[in-house]
């Protein structure tokens, strides 16, 4: 472990203190590893910092389905998920349909000695709207319905235009909303809550599962599948890939007639994520 000291060092120094925010600046003069003392001169795009310990890594190509982990803390840095955008879209649309169905039909139905009562998913929110509970009702509404809906709709907002080589405004904002809301989307917890409630009541009353219950179960499976297909990072890869290509296209069209040709070629391309 030895730093390379030479002219390169001082020039690198100057560059680092030259204070412009050029993303293409290189990190110089860092010897890497104990064995290979090559100089890292990688553009910032080829670096990835661990989000849990901040360690810098150089991105490497990994096989499809494999995971790049931080060498120090084992956190997942990125995953190579080579899914077509069509599949992700299909799952997204299916999840949205299930969400609508789950909210249109009764969720559970209880009957005790001739009396019966049914509830929908939203009823649980309304049941909390009593005195001193309205705040809980409000956040529950967010956790069960609003945030999951925003995630699903946002995903479609991002992916659908990409599928047709178009760009809608404020994609970045939608992306960030999805990222920041993801811990607060709790449909799966609500589902397990329903199962606990079922077990509690099973011995005392007769309970029927409504259509909504099954739709909701499917919704959770689809959500899990969708998270498996596109995590936040690969979603961003889709977006930036599309940005890059549209920039290339613009440049190509400015250039010459070859722009058209390039465009046609791009259209057939799969949206594979290669990190």
């Amino acid at each position, binding site marked *: *472990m030895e730093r390379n000291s030479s002219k390169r060092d001082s020039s690198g120094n100057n560059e*680092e*203190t030259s*204070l*412009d*925010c050029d993303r293409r*600046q290189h*990190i110089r003069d*860092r010897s*890497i*590893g104990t064995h290979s003392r*090559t100089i890292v001169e*990688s553009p*910032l795009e*080829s*670096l*990835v*910092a661990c*989000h*849990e*310990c*901040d*360690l*810098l*890594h*150089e991105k*490497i190509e990994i096989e499809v389905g494999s995971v790049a982990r931080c060498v*120090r*803390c*084992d*956190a997942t840095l990125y995953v190579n998920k080579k899914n077509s955008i069509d599949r992700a879209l299909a799952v997204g649309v299916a999840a949205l349909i299930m969400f609508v169905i789950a909210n249109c039909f009764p969720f559970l139905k209880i009957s*005790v000695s001739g*009396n019966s*009562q049914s*509830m929908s998913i939203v009823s*649980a*929110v*309304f*049941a*909390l709207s*009593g005195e001193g*509970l309205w*705040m*809980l009702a409000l*956040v*529950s509404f967010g956790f069960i319905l609003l945030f999951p809906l925003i995630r699903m709709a946002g995903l479609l907002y991002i992916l659908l235009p990409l599928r047709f080589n178009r760009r809608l405004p404020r994609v*970045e904002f939608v*992306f960030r909303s999805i*990222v920041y809301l993801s811990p607060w989307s*709790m449909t799966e*917890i609500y589902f397990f*809550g*329903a199962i*606990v409630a079922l077990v*509690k009541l099973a011995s*005392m*009353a007769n309970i029927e599962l409504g259509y909504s219950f099954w739709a909701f179960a499917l919704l959770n499976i689809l959500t899990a599948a969708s998270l498996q297909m596109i995590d*936040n*990072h690969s979603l961003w890869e889709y977006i*930036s890939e599309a940005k890059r290509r549209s920039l290339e296209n613009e440049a190509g069209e400015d250039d010459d007639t070859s722009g058209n040709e390039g465009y046609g070629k791009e259209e057939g391309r799969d949206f594979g994520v290669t990190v």
Partner: protein
Amino acid sequence: MLTAAQCGLVACPACGTITRLSIERLDAPPKCQLCFARLHSRKPMSIQRSWAWLTAGILAYLPANIFPIMVTTVFGDSEPNTIIGGFFVLWEMESYLIAIVVFLASVVVPVLKFLAVSYLLISIQRRFQHSKYDRTRLFRMTEFIGRWSMIDVFVVAILAALVQIGSVAQIDPGIGATAFGATVIFTMLSALALDPRLLWDDKPAEGNRIDHRQSVNPNRDAQPTELVATGQRYE
């Protein structure tokens, strides 16, 4: 081993893109050039905010256990149920699995979360140098499992919505449910405020300003990094 902060770089929390911090933007909080998320080398005021949310969570946990989370009325007889009471009822009904789930979600997880986050915060403040890896794993677990405590609130909400059968039986949510929900939300916020990268920092690096200055004069004496060497370029 070099961190992004030591090189004057910062990774976007949303999209992961790496940006170089510059002195010109010292006063304005820098934003990711690609997705426009706010950039912080370390979450600002991480320790303080985390302690504050954690304290709020612990305080809310007391009324959550004292007040009933729901009131059951069967043929006119009202009976308040506390969190612990609900567990015993399930245990007597011999649905042990569900009883254990409820006990885990409502007692074990919140209490362990209080302890874990406190320990992590103290370890950062005291600058413990040992078992950084294990503490990171502890953090990851806390972050993952904390939200599942919300299951208790949802159970109460579902029961209250379903069991409204005239004179036969009725379940109403109690004020304890609000307190418990607050506990869960506050502890989640506490874990979100806690920046795990502080566990690995040798020097306390808090807030943007300090990091900016560090970025202008990156720590030149830092140990050479151990990047994954490949020579492959990203195109």
